[in-house]
């Protein structure tokens, strides 16, 4: 992204632009720095005011939440929560990307007239707040004995991710010239062949962005697993509650657990960063 951007640039001196941006970067990242620093502070230093800036770092909080100490009852099943978060995030992303992409391809590339109505229906489905469905979902999954399983959370989250995938992917697909799949069909591809061999490879950036957001949504979701899981299938985002519940806030473990929950999504986000801007770029602006 090195070519000069249009519209640039105001006659604001570079130094001021960098200064303003620096303030915002500090504002965005200081809380995360603080979470991390507090997580490696000795217990006695965590909530001192004024804060202790120099201390001997310790991994005690991490040991505690990973259950590597037997000193306290706070030793929790953090590893299990992390595994659950991973299963839920990946388990939501893959099927919703697959089904959503198929649907998006069908309605944008097959020249059907109900495509618009399908998209509107999908949109309305997305607008139903998950909180409104909690009782029915609880009853539904109780009936099928799926309460406190990752599957229940995955099925639910997938449904709320699907509309997003369909909308994003139809945006990307409808950009491509129709000659592309026509050529593939003439060459003897099936519809699915045209999708997987021709259309998907050139929509890779869109697929990555969409997939990233669905993955993040699954990893970070709170309300659905709060209601549908108890202990066995609980992800980190829900388990984090136990450190702040009631009057006994466990600061150190809270910050350590936060840091561990933040780490994977920051890495994934950094890896996908060049797609992030390009994925949305695909156009929307005329001119």
């Amino acid at each position: 992204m090195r070519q000069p951007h249009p519209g640039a640039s105001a006659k604001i001196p570079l130094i001021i632009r960098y200064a303003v941006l620096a303030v915002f970067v500090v504002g965005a990242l200081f809380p995360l720095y603080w979470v991390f620093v507090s997580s490696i502070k000795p217990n006695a230093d965590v909530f001192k005011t004024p804060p202790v800036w120099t201390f001997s770092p310790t991994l005690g909080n991490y040991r505690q939440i990973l259950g590597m100490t037997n000193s306290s009852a706070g030793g929790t099943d953090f590893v299990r929560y992390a595994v659950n978060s991973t299963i839920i995030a990946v388990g939501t992303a893959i099927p919703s990307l697959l089904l959503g992409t198929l649907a998006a391809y069908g309605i944008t590339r097959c020249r059907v007239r109900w495509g618009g109505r399908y998209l509107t229906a999908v949109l309305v489905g997305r607008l139903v707040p998950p909180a409104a469905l909690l009782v029915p979902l609880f009853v539904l999954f109780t009936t099928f004995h799926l309460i406190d399983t990752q599957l229940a959370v995955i099925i639910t989250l997938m449904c709320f991710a699907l509309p997003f995938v369909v909308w994003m992917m139809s945006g990307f697909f409808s950009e491509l010239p129709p000659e592309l799949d026509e050529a593939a069909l003439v060459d003897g591809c099936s519809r699915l062949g045209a999708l997987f061999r021709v259309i998907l490879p050139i929509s890779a950036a869109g697929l990555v962005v969409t997939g990233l957001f669905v993955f993040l949504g699954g990893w970070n979701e709170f309300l659905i697993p709060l209601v549908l899981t108890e202990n066995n299938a609980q992800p980190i985002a829900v388990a984090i509650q136990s450190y702040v519940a009631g009057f006994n806030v466990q600061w150190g473990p809270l910050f350590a657990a936060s840091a561990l929950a933040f780490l994977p999504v920051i890495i994934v986000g950094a890896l996908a960063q060049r797609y992030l801007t390009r994925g949305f770029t695909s156009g929307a602006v005329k001119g």
Partner: protein
Amino acid sequence: MPRAGDHPARGTARAMATKASGRWGKQTGKPSRRDHRAALFLALPAAIVAIGVIVAPLFYALWLSLHRTPLVGGSVYAGFSEYSQVLHSGAFWASIGVTAEVAVPTIIVELILGTTLALLLQNLRWAGTIRLLLIVPILLSPAIVGADWSVMLNRSTGIINYFLGVFHLPQESFTATASTALPTVDAIYAWQNVGFTLLVITAGLASVSQELVDAITVDGANYIQRLRFLLLPLLGPLFAIIIFWRFVTLVEDYGLVGLLTGGGPGTSTTTATLYLYNQLTAGDNVGLASAAAIIIALMTIIVGMVLARIALLNKQLRERGT
């Protein structure tokens, strides 16, 4: 037969991420039967899953809302009595008010700051890196963000109040006082999500053609005029899309406000989603909770569709105008 490109919802789909090059216009041919079958086959699985887990539960909630279900004994048909009870409840309307007070200022602040940041980053050498740093918060779990901020905003031991003290500013109780709790919630939402506007607007700015900018510059437009008459109008549909998605995600969020304030003090930060959750977990009247769920779902759908329409209308007007 209307051209495929004129279909309203397709217009919206394109508004999400397409160049208005009229490519749809080429597809004037009637869909072949084969195409039709293929599309049906492709679109059906997603529809079935969505119907199973969104539509069916919604109808169940509708049924529940029309019945009174005591703890013992069967449920009795109650008509719309639960609905009228919800609509006459002060707590319900208060939660709708809180939702608006969270959504409107938060989205406005995000739009202004996100767009400013995107403009400041234009043509900077380190734009990519700085942008990555700025968007980190949107990657994080709102619930964990809420929990961490609640600690950092603590009246006596929080780091934020320590800094206020360092700069001789009055210390605040933030989430502990009704008058400051709501602005605090707004601020934390904006802190976490300003990066979304930044991303979308960056993408939008990058796709404005250099020729247009050159043309208007040759005509003597200065930076402010370029912004006012070229860039911001071109970005219009993107603003509409950002407002739409942020509305949807803000309204349904439970985690951030739930762990930051828990809806308190009192009910000063109880949004519609928190109100619903409280109703449901109180558990004494499933019918009432379901009626509230249906009403809130309807309100969300209506506002959401209006916002989607604006995004679409914007797009169509511009297509016609140029």
